[in-house]
């Protein structure tokens, strides 16, 4: 496993930053969706709230491989790669991730409860912003 640098952890913690979660199915069809609930639990673990049993959930269970891109205005960006570990449906991590995610939705007038929180172990991280784009951080 890899330990994320502090600047990447901070970028992932910021709720206003844009985060995309990339998965693929076994036929190598790529799915990339915005995932506002994704946060770091510590410097080697990410978690996100899963609200629907859609393509992302199916892909992550099938292949276990993910990539995350995070954009931090005005010009910073990072890519984190990882491996899906498990779902959590209650407990400390579930509450830490699901609570803020539900609050974000409530602010938009929506009421959904995550069916689970996905736990991801970080394997690599890269810079995405020019001039460092592609440079491996961990």
């Amino acid at each position, binding site marked *: 496993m890899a330990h994320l640098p502090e600047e990447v952890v901070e970028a992932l913690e910021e709720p206003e930053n*844009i985060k995309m979660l990339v998965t*693929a199915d076994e036929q*190598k069809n*790529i*799915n*990339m969706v*915005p995932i506002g609930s994704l946060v770091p639990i510590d410097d080697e673990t990410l978690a996100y709230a899963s609200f*629907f049993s859609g393509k992302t959930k199916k892909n992550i269970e099938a292949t276990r*491989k993910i990539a995350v891109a995070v954009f931090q205005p005005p010009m910073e960006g990072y890519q984190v790669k990882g491996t899906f570990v498990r779902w959590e449906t209650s407990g400390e991590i579930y509450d830490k991730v699901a609570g803020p995610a539900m609050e974000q939705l409530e602010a938009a007038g*929506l009421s959904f409860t995550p069916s689970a929180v996905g736990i991801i172990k970080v394997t690599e991280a890269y810079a995405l912003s020019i001039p460092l784009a592609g440079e491996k951080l961990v």
Partner: protein
Amino acid sequence: MAIMSQEVLDTLTSDTTMKFLATMDTSGILNASIVATVSPMDPETIIFANLKLNKTKKNLLATKKFTVTTFSPSMESIQLQCTFQGFQNTGPMVDQFNEAVYSKIKLQLSEVGVGKVDEVYTMGLTKPKTKIA
């Protein structure tokens, strides 16, 4: 191939839309990039500048498949499933695109990637992922 609607074209050309491009290598390792230059060339085709797209370029040449997902200030997203057509580094389209990119971000592109759009989906807080083309 899919035909992008005017709404999708407008989203792709908006300066306030963030655009991400994802690829995969032949062993299934995913790669995500921020590619702000993704633009429509016509309703079936998108283009983007190669500005240090090292791994993305390798993956595109190897697998030909990529996905673009946008994020708008309205928190709506569009996903384009695309087939890579190739890179161009000369010609009027490249010159015109280079000029447009340079005027915005003051960087010279090395080449222009071209992709045909196969499928288009919309996503948002209030609507699940839905195929629209």
